[in-house]
C-alpha cells in the first residue's frame, strides 16, 4: 500500500480510474509528475513531543526534528545585524548555527537568556538552528484528539507565521518547527538586509 494518500485514493476510487483513463498521454505524465513530487500526506496519528519550559510559558516541539539537547555552558558569538531575539551564533558539530531565544522570538522581544539555559538543536529541511529554552520537561506522546485547536493561541501571537502554532495541550503551545525554522531564517536574512 502506498504511503501517499492521494495515490491510495486514486487507485481505490472508480471515478479516479475513469479520470485517469480519460487523460491524454501528456496530461497523464503531467499528473503523474505532480503526484510524484507531492509530499507524503499520510498523517501520523501519534507523535512524540518534547515539552519545554520558557520564561513564562511552556511549549511543545515535535521530537522528530530534535537533533540534540545541549546542556550549558554555551559559547555564543554576537553577529552583526541580527534580530533582537537572537543572542548570536554557536558551534554545533563543527558547524556555525544560529542560536535563538525561543521565548523572545515568540513574544517578539529582546533576548534574555540566562547562563543555565538549554540549547535544543532542531533540524528540518536542511535548516539547522539552536533554540534556547529554560528547561526541558517530559516527552509526551500525543494523538490528534488530545491536541486542542490553535485559534485562541494564534490570537495571542498574531505576529507569528501562519501555521506556526499547531494547537495547544495542557496550556502549552504545540509548535510546527518546520514553519518556525523557515520564519526564523527569513527574519535573520531580512535583518541583514534591512538592519
Amino acid at each position, binding site marked *: 500500500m502506498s504511503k501517499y494518500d492521494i495515490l491510495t485514493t486514486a487507485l481505490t476510487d472508480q471515478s479516479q480510474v475513469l479520470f485517469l483513463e480519460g487523460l491524454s498521454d501528456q496530461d497523464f505524465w503531467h499528473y503523474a509528475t505532480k503526484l510524484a513530487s507531492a509530499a507524503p500526506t499520510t498523517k501520523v496519528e501519534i507523535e512524540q513531543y518534547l515539552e519545554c519550559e520558557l520564561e513564562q510559558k511552556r511549549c511543545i516541539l515535535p521530537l522528530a526534528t530534535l537533533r540534540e539537547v545541549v546542556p550549558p555552558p554555551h559559547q555564543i*558569538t554576537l553577529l*552583526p545585524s541580527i534580530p533582537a531575539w537572537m543572542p548570536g*551564533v554557536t558551534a554545533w558539530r*563543527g558547524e*556555525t548555527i544560529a542560536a535563538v531565544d525561543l521565548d523572545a522570538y515568540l513574544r517578539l522581544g529582546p533576548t534574555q537568556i540566562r547562563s543555565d539555559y538549554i540549547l535544543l538543536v532542531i533540524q528540518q529541511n536542511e535548516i539547522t538552528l539552536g533554540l534556547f529554552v529554560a528547561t526541558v520537561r517530559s516527552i509526551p506522546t500525543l494523538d490528534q484528539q488530545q491536541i486542542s485547536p490553535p485559534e485562541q493561541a494564534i490570537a495571542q501571537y498574531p505576529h507569528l507565521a501562519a501555521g506556526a502554532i499547531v494547537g495547544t495541550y495542557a496550556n502549552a503551545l504545540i509548535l510546527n518547527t518546520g514553519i518556525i525554522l523557515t520564519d526564523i531564517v527569513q527574519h535573520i*536574512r531580512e535583518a*541583514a538586509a*534591512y*538592519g
Partner: protein
Amino acid sequence: MDDIFPALDEIDKSELSEDDLAVLQAFEAMENWPAIPDSSQSSDPALVVPLPHFSPVNDDGMFMLFISEAEEDIASMQQTLKYLDQEDHINPARFVRLQRLGHKLRGTAGAVDFPIMSTIASHVEVIAEQVTEGKVYPLVGIYALSQTISALERHLREIISQGKEPEGDILLATLDVTYRNLNIDLQLADEKGPVHTHLVGNSELYTDTIESYEDAEDIQHENFVSARITTPLSLDSVQEATQHSHGNTRIDVKRFEKLSWHLEQLVELRTVLEDAQIEVEKALQELQTSQMRLQHLEPMLSLFLTSSPFPQKMGEMISSSLIARILNEAIQRRSPLSFRKSRLQLRSAAVSTATTWDELDMERYSEKDLLLRSLKEAIADVSLTTTRLQAAHAHLAIVQQEYVSRVAAVRSATLQMRQAPLSVLVPRLRRVVTLSALAQTQEVQFEVIGETIEIDQDTLEALAFPLVQLLRTCIADTIISTNKTEQGQKELSRIWLYIRETGNEIVLEIGFSMTVHGGAIDAIRDSIQRLNGKMSLRRNGDGGVSFFLYIPRLQGAVRCLLVRTNLQKLVIPFSQIQRIVDRQGEKLDRIYHLRDLLGFPAPAPVAAILMEHSQSVLVMQETEFGQIGIAVDEVVGEIELFVKPLKSYLQRPGIMGTAIDGKGCVTLTVDLPMLVRHYTHTITLDSLRKAKQDAEKPDPVAKQIRVLVADDAVYLRHSVRQTLQHGNYTVIEARDGMEAIEKLQESVPEVCVLDVEMPNLNGYDVLNMVHQTPELKNMKVIMLTSRSSEKHRLHAIELGAHAYLTKPCSQETLLTTIQELFASP
C-alpha cells in the same frame, strides 16, 4: 562483456533510439570477441590477437565498410559529446551512449586488425564508464573524451590516407599523458564504487613510463599550441596546473571526508594544547616562587634553631605552611613547658628502658640537626625538580610547536587533494564562446588569467553551470553591433575571465568589452547563492560590463590577527593589515572603532575610558579613503584558523566566515575593507536621510521625489520624463540596465521606473541588484514594460517590484501609481 551490458532481449526496445538499437545489435554480434584490452599493454600491436577472418589488405570491400562504419561511429560520438557539453546540468547516465559506441568501435577495429584504433576506442568506453559510475567528474570526462575522440578521428584519417594502420605509440602516449593530467586511471575500469580521483602524488604508478612520456609531452605541447588557434580546446592550462603531479590513486569520498573531519578535530586541539601549556607555565611560575621563598627562609630557620630564645614574631613572618609547621614544632620543643614535658617523657622512657636514656641531651641536638638537614635536602630536591620540569616544559613546547606545524602541513596537503585547477572549466567556457551567435558574426577573443588557481572539486563542479549560463546569456543573440574598423575588418570583441584569490575567497571577473544581453543575473543568482557566493558588476575600461563573482573556498586555513573588541574575539586576515600602531602614535586620515563598524553595543562608561587608553590601531592597506585605522580593544596575537563560509542567511557585509576554536567558540573572520565600505555607505545614507527629513516642509512632497527612469527607448524616456515633470517629480534617466545600476550607486532616488527589455542588463537584472542592496530597501520600483503576461508580472513582483505597468501606459496611471505607492505604509 555480459557483465557490462544486459542482453538485448532484457531491454525494452521501445525506449531506445534507432542508433542505440543498432549499437546493441552490434554488441550481440560481438558476443565472442576478446575482452577489453589493457590500456597499458594494448599499445603493443603484438599483444592484440589478430582475428582470422579478414584484414584490410586482402579485402578492400570490408575495409571500405569498416571505414564508413568507423566514421559514422566517431561522428555519433562527437554529436553525443556536443549535446552533453551543451547541457546545463550534465547527467552522468548520458555517457552510456558513448560507452556503447566506444565498445562497438573497439570491437570492429579489433576485428579488422587495427589494434591502435581498437585501443583508443576502448579508452572512450572506459572513460565513459568511469563517468557513469561517478569515478570521474562529468566535466573532466567530457574534456578527456573530446581529446580521445579527436585522436580517433585523426588516426582514422591516417588509416584512410595510408591504406593501413600507422604506428600509434606516440598517439597513445600522448593520450596517456592527457589522462594522467586529468587524474583519470584507465586501469580502474573493473572497479566499482562511488569514488572520485584525487591527486596524492603517488609517482610509483607512472615511474616506469615517465621517460617515454617526456617526448610525448613535447609533441603534445606542440600539437596543442597549434590546435589552440583552430579549436577552443586547450590542455596547456591543465598541464601547467597539474604538472607537479606524477600519478594518482583512488580515494573513497566518504573515507576522505572522515579523514578531513579527524584532521579538523586535530587542528582544533591546538587551542586546547596551548591553553594547557599556559596553565602549566603558570603552575611552574608558582612553583618557582615557592622555591625561592623556601630558599629565603631556610637560613632564617637555621639561625633560629641555633640561637635562643626564638622571637615569637618570627612565626608571623613565615607564610609557608611547611616552614610554619617545622618552626611551630621547634617552638613547642623549646618552650619551658614543652621542655619539661619532653624531659618527663624522657624520664618516663628511662624508667621503662634504661638503654634509651641520653645524658648529654644528644637526642634534641640530633633532631634539630636532622630537621635542618632534611629541610635543606627538601629544598634542594624541589629546586632540582623545578629545573627538570622547566627543561621538560621547554622541550614539550618545542615538540608541541613541531606537532602543530606538522598538523597544519598535513591539513594543507589533505585540502589540496580535494582541489582541482579552474583551468578544467576553461575548455567548456571557450566552447560556449566559440559556438555563440556572437562568434559567428564577429571575431571574439577569450582571455583567461589565473586559471591555475585551485578550488575544491565540488565547488568547481557547481561553478560550471553559473559560468556557462552567464556567458551564454550575455552573448545570447546578435544584438551586439558588428562594428567595423577603419580597414573594413570586423571589430574584435573581448571576453575575459580573470581569477584571483583574496583571503578565503576566489574572485572571478567575467568581463565583456561590448554591450551584453540582459538576464544574466537572473540566470545565475540562485547558483551563486547556493555556493554562498556574492556578485557585483561594474563598467569596465573597455566600456562593457564586468561581472565579479566572489566564491568562498569551502574550507581553508587563513593566517590571521586575533583581536578583541568588547568581550568578543575576532580575527582579521594579515593580508588586510599594513601595521599596528598606538592610538596616539600616528596620524591617520580616519580612525574607526571595530565595535562601531560591526554595530556592537558600546561598553559601560568606565570600561570605555579604560579601553580608550589600551586601544591599538590596525592600519589598513591603502584604500580609496586614504589611510584608515581600525581601533580594537586588544591585539591578542596571531593565529591560523580554518575559516568556513557562513550559511547564506547568516552572511553579513564585512564578515568573511567563521572559525571554531578548540573550545567550541565561534570566531568571526572580518573583511575590513568591505566592513568599512559598508559602514561609510550606511552612515552617508543615514545622514542624507536625516538632512532630507530636516529639510522637509509641508509643501507638496512631489517636488522632493526623484524618479529614475530606465528605458532604452529614447521616445519613451522623453515621454515619461514629461509626464513626471508635469507631476513635479525630478527625473533621472538611464539608457540601459548597467547605467541604471550606476545611477543608483551614485544616489538613491525614491522611485525607479524600469523597463524589462534593455541592453546591457535588463530590468530583472536591475531588480535583482536592488534586492541585494540594503541601501535601496526604501526605493519603490515600478516596472513599465511591454511584457504583459502574468508570468512576467509575477516574476517581477517576486523579485521585489512594487508595481507592474504595461505599455502603453497613460500619464494618469503612472502618476496615480506613484502616489499610491507613497500613500501605502
